[in-house]
């Protein structure tokens, strides 16, 4: 078989459970969690790849992959199904030398797929996470990497000094070259937090992955092992500063916040296109949405296939939802296929896919900034029975 040589390919780490999303990831990998009315989290890194001119993406899956695999399919929604492009799902597999099995860590996941990468004989490999909401041109980062003659470039964003001890921090020289990497430092020396986006020279990365695999004490992780090893060996590492919107949607709170950030006339995070900024998603054959004569919809997103008979304020209503008569939805994220029956009230909540809120039931309470963590959550397919209450901060 003939494989076209690629200057740069991407490897997307999509195997994590996302346990901090609790009931939302009980049966679904985090990258497949719905976002913004019609998207899933993985649409962001995948669309970024396409918009950056990267047409070969390996997607490493492990935890609860059924829905994620179905969603990715042959990569057609992102235009990654052409003769010389692909969105290749790479699950863990069994090998004759026993150096296989479950992905032990982020670096091991890439190690196990060296053969996939080698087919394209790339100069550079971009390694991405599948759990962030952002728009970024990776090609600009690759150019920066090449211009600086680095072996590895790590995207960083400036965080506050208080926040810095929650992140992997890059300590840099004035020219942005990295002299030290500290994982969650108690006394941070810098505020440049790693975004988990790396550009590697493939030859260098390959050598370090193989060496890392030989080390029985390694946890086979990019942050803990590969990056420090590269630094110790004297390789040049660069920090690439990114100041656009970026949100780690790893918690219920941050997932809710990121969804709210897309709302408004001038949203904090603009989902709309613009040149090379369209976010692509797998589309369903759903009819146009419908807003009834008694409905009231204000400051909200309402996606196709939804029917609104009640009131919606400051919320995301995803594809294929029904909001019944006299129902009220406020400050909430309503995921695809949810039914809110007549008279129900939903406030400050995330309703998981295909969940149902019965007639006159109450979910959550009024949003108060001081209680911003008290988000009520329903899991996929859960039913809040009619005339019952799901308290603020409770999960079903």
């Amino acid at each position, binding site marked *: 078989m003939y494989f076209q040589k690629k200057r740069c390919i991407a490897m997307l780490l999509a195997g994590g459970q996302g346990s901090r999303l609790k009931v939302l990831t009980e049966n679904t990998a985090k990258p497949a969690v719905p976002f*913004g*009315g*019609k998207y899933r989290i993985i649409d962001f890194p995948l669309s970024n790849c396409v918009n950056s001119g990267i047409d070969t993406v390996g997607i490493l899956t492990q935890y609860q992959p059924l829905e994620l695999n179905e969603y990715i399919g042959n990569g*057609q*929604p992102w235009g990654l199904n052409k003769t010389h492009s692909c969105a290749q799902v790479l699950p863990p597999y069994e090998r004759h030398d026993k150096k296989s099995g479950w992905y032990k860590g982020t670096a091991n996941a890439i190690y196990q797929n060296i053969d996939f990468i080698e087919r394209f004989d790339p100069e550079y490999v971009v390694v991405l996470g599948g759990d962030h909401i952002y728009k970024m041109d990776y090609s600009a980062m690759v150019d920066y990497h090449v211009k600086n003659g680095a072996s590895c470039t790590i995207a960083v964003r400036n965080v506050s000094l208080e926040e810095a001890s929650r992140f992997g921090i890059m300590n840099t020289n004035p020219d942005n070259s990295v002299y030290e990497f500290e994982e969650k430092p108690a006394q941070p020396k810098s505020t440049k937090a790693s975004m988990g986006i790396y550009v590697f020279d493939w030859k260098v990365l390959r050598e370090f992955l193989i060496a890392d695999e030989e080390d029985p004490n390694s946890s086979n992780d990019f942050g803990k092992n590969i990056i420090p090893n590269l630094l110790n060996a004297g390789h040049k590492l660069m920090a690439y500063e990114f100041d656009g919107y970026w949100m780690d949607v790893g918690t219920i709170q941050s997932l809710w916040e990121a969804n709210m950030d*897309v*709302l408004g*006339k001038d949203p904090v995070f603009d*989902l*709309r*296109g613009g040149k090379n900024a*369209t*976010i*692509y*998603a797998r*589309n369903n*054959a*759903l*009819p*146009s*949405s*419908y*807003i*009834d*004569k*008694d*409905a009231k*919809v*204000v*400051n*909200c*997103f*309402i*996606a*196709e296939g939804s*029917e609104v008979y009640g009131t*919606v304020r400051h919320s*995301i*209503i*995803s*594809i294929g939802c029904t909001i019944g008569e006299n129902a009220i939805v406020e400050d909430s994220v309503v995921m695809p296929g949810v039914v809110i029956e007549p008279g129900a009230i939903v406030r400050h909540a995330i309703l998981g896919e295909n969940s149902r809120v019965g007639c006159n039931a109450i979910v959550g309470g009024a949003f108060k900034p001081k209680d911003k963590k008290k988000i009520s959550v329903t899991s996929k397919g859960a039913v809040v029975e009619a005339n019952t209450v799901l308290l603020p901060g409770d999960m079903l």
Partner: protein
Amino acid sequence: MKVMGIIFANDGSLEGLTTHRTTASVPFGGRYRQVDFALSNLTAAGVRQVGIISRHHYQSLINHIGAGEEWGLELEEGGLEFLTPYAMSATDSYRGKLESLYAAMTFLTYGTEDAYVILTGSTILCNINMKDVLASHIASGKDITIVTKAGVANGKKQLDLAIKLDKKGEVADIAVDYAAPEGYLATMDIFVTSKKWLAEQVREHIARNLFHMDRDLVLGLWQKSEGSINVYQFPGVVLYNESVAEYFHNTLALIDTKTRHDLFGYNHPVYTRVRDRVPTFYGENSEATDIVLADGCMIGGKVTNSVLFRNVTVYPGAEVSDCVIMNDAVIGEGAELKYVILDKDVTVRPGAKLIGTPDNPVIITRGGLV
């Protein structure tokens, strides 16, 4: 069961809406084009070979359908074929469906001879189970099946083909281009025959300079008692978009939940070309009621009893009621629109006023600035 489909893309005209496009590619219902219904009806029934016969300005149609991947027709074997016109020896272009089928004879006779063919227009919209129609055709043992709708004939609407049945359900009368009185069934422009029979009929008719499907083939056969006709009656919602007034009325009919659910969920989903647009955003001071709309809109003003297509922007202070607003329209602050059809890419200046009537909506053609 081998069955192929043929869609006629240019039937009739919708005035300004079909100046630059086929009737098949006229946008409908917020995110569709009319041909999506015929295509989805065919492919939902497992038809994997579809020919589309077009006569003129079919650029937008080809753009929309592409290789047919949205309908699962991007296939190695069969799939989608555009049967675009070429001048006939005797005429400049096709004069009727039989003549266009004659030109498409290679397509029609390709493959097994015992297969069936479903012929469908693209301006009469419905969500029909073609497997049922085909089963009825086969069970009847007749030469041709005509799909019809009761309750359309009213003595005023001109029907392409009107059929009256006797008490036993046999054909008692057939009339063409006739404002039939109540009690007649109206054709839905969907026919089923065997390929072999149709090919024979096309050859025989063209040889005698007869080219009109309804008049020469159906009426002719019946009058001469040379063919047998099975009549299938469809119970679901059918929208006849044969004039601008009908198109306008039927588009706004989608606001009725029963009509909408019937048309989009009766038998199968309706597929269309995907455009990646963000969900529609409703602003802080928007008032939106009784509307059907696609993704990508920004609603800042007041919109009632209307259908909006993708990417429409309604600025705060604008008022839109009883309108059909196609893709990418921008309606400026303080503008007022009532009984208006805006074709694609129209810009309405702030403060502009456009008022039509229910039977004579104002049409602003593609790319207009008012």
